[in-house]
């Protein structure tokens, strides 16, 4: 149990030299109160005696208090003498005195316009360097992908299938749910608007165009970026941290070929598949809602689909999938390769990976939309 009996420090100023008498237990627990209650040594004191003969216990905190006091007084030209200390107390005082750093640490970060500009400049340059590095990494992945296509026996088939299962098969339920819900929402919203004009039957076109051309594949890409992109960054980033990637290189294994190519290839294969599944689920959800809400029978829904939608509409959606896959894979694995230092870095890089790949996927989707509209597709 910690005894709460606090040490008391009294100053005997009448004698020469001045005596500072410490009694009781001088422990860290009560150090704040002891310091507040400590009498101040009159300035101009030439010699101070610190009498420790009544000290019952002293720990490093207590020793620090005395050593710090002594240090400050000695800086003012006062001689400090310690009396009545036991051998252990002397050793403790000496050890603690030696451990006090000579200068106070300056913690405050620099403020003001110049440091701000300095940081701004550094970040700008850093971002530029990151973009160059990312593009270089993208090129490296493309080269290795082509290399694997030319020499298929170099492909790590087991890893590829594992990642296809992880990123593809296991994502099917969430993608189906998401697609179905999007179809339902579109039908619901479309019905409310179109019924004002008595044009309910056009809900089929609304759903088909938006799901097939845009939403199915875009939302699938966003889900995959959040689900698999983050997993890639976290797992490969941890490998980087554990020096597994260094170990591979010393063993003559190419980390790009072993770690990156199977993952990117798995995304390239599975994202179109998932997008297609999302499209179907979206149409099913839309058809179901149209039937229940607008009385558009499934037969009529399918007939309208055949009439108005050609295969090219599906193609325009699907053509984007491999691009999205490359974006997600490249960013996730590039971020993983940037991990360094501690596990905090893995978390930061994983967040950055998801945010960046989702933003770039959406930006890329906008570019595709503009391109297709200019081309009148």
């Amino acid at each position, binding site marked *: *149990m*910690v005894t709460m009996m606090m040490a008391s420090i009294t100053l005997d100023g009448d004698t020469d030299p001045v005596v500072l008498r410490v009694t009781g237990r001088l*422990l*860290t*627990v009560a*150090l*704040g109160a002891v*310091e507040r209650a400590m009498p101040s040594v009159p300035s101009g004191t030439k010699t101070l005696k610190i009498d420790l003969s009544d000290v019952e216990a002293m*720990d*490093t*905190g207590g020793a*620090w208090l005395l050593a*710090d006091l002594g240090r400050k007084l000695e800086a003012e030209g006062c001689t400090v003498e310690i009396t009545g200390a036991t051998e*252990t107390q002397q*050793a*403790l005082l*000496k*050890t*603690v005195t*030696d*451990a*006090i*750093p*000579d*200068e106070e*640490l300056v*913690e405050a970060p620099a403020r003001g316009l110049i440091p701000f500009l300095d940081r701004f400049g550094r970040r700008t340059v850093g971002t530029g360097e990151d973009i160059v590095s990312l593009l270089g990494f993208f090129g490296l992945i493309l080269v290795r992908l082509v290399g694997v296509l030319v020499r298929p026996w170099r492909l790590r088939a087991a890893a590829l299938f594992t990642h296809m299962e992880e990123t593809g098969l296991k994502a099917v339920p969430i993608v189906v749910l998401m697609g179905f819900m999007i179809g339902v929402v579109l039908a619901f919203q479309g019905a409310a608007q179109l019924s004002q004009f008595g044009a309910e039957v056009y809900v089929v076109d609304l759903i088909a165009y938006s799901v097939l051309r845009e939403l199915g594949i875009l939302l699938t890409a966003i889900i995959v970026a959040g689900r698999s992109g983050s997993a890639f960054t976290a797992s490969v980033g941890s490998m980087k941290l554990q020096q597994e990637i260094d170990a591979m290189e010393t063993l003559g294994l190419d980390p790009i070929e072993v770690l990156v190519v199977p993952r990117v290839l798995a995304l390239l294969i599975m994202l179109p598949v998932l997008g297609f599944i999302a499209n179907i689920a979206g149409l099913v959800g839309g058809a179901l809602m149209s039937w229940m809400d607008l009385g558009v029978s499934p037969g009529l829904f399918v007939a309208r689909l055949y009439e108005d939608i050609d295969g090219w509409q599906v193609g325009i959606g699907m053509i984007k999938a491999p691009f999205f896959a490359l974006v997600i894979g490249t960013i996730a694995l590039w971020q993983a390769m940037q991990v*360094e*230092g*501690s*596990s*905090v*870095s893995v978390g930061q890089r994983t967040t950055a990976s998801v945010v960046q790949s989702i933003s770039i996927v959406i930006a890329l989707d906008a570019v595709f939309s503009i391109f297709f509209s200019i081309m009148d597709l």
Partner: protein
Amino acid sequence: MDGAAVPLGDTAPDTTREVVIRVRDLVNQFGKQVVHDHLDLDVYRGEVLGIVGGSGTGKSVLLRTIVGLNRPKEGSIEVLGVDVLNGPEAERLQVERRWGVAFQDGALFSSLTVLQNVMAPMREHLKLPRAMMKALAEVKIGLAGLPPNAADKYPSELSGGMRKRAALARALALDPEILFLDEPTAGLDPIGAAAYDELIRGLQRALGLTVFMVTHDLDSLYAICDRIAVLAEKRVLVTGPIEDMTSVDHPWVKEYFTGPRARAAQAKKKS
């Protein structure tokens, strides 16, 4: 067994010295694998006790069990007179503030600087002004033999040896009476390891610490351990000063303390 041999088993408790850690009938079992089978151990105040044993004999498990990170199947553990397994919660919390643990790889909080790491237990347990806490933390960092500029660094910016010292500084944060060290010199170069041994010895003397040290380092055993406890056959096979170890009649102990590395360490100590 010849006549001069030290008897196996924990030697008869020395009743003249204060026991700070008392382990009795400890049984640790993971699945079907029994690690400790009715293990007894006493640690006396102010000593440096080295725990040795082959890989998988449960040295680290013993340390983890004493500090409460692993719940044993049976047995009792008393630290500073408090039953740490079944005693009242408040008493156990009190006792936890009176020991410090330095883990093998430091186990520093990676998102905090060294100074913040050392201040973390102080903020939790002490009501002191911030400036004083900072000054005290700087002293602990100095005590652990780190240069003042290390205080502002993050653990990932430190070398392995410096991380171990930072972990020691954090373990000393609350002025513990007992210091637990898990493989303190593993992964250090011989010069760094010797310096660390010296540091522990110096701190132990100046602060009056009791040190419980799991180690493989024969040099450390010769240089700083007052007593050695050998774990083998699921219990403490023998305890005693290192000089006694060479006469223990047990194949593992014999090989450990009379092998070429042991002889080299002994020669180094004598010179």
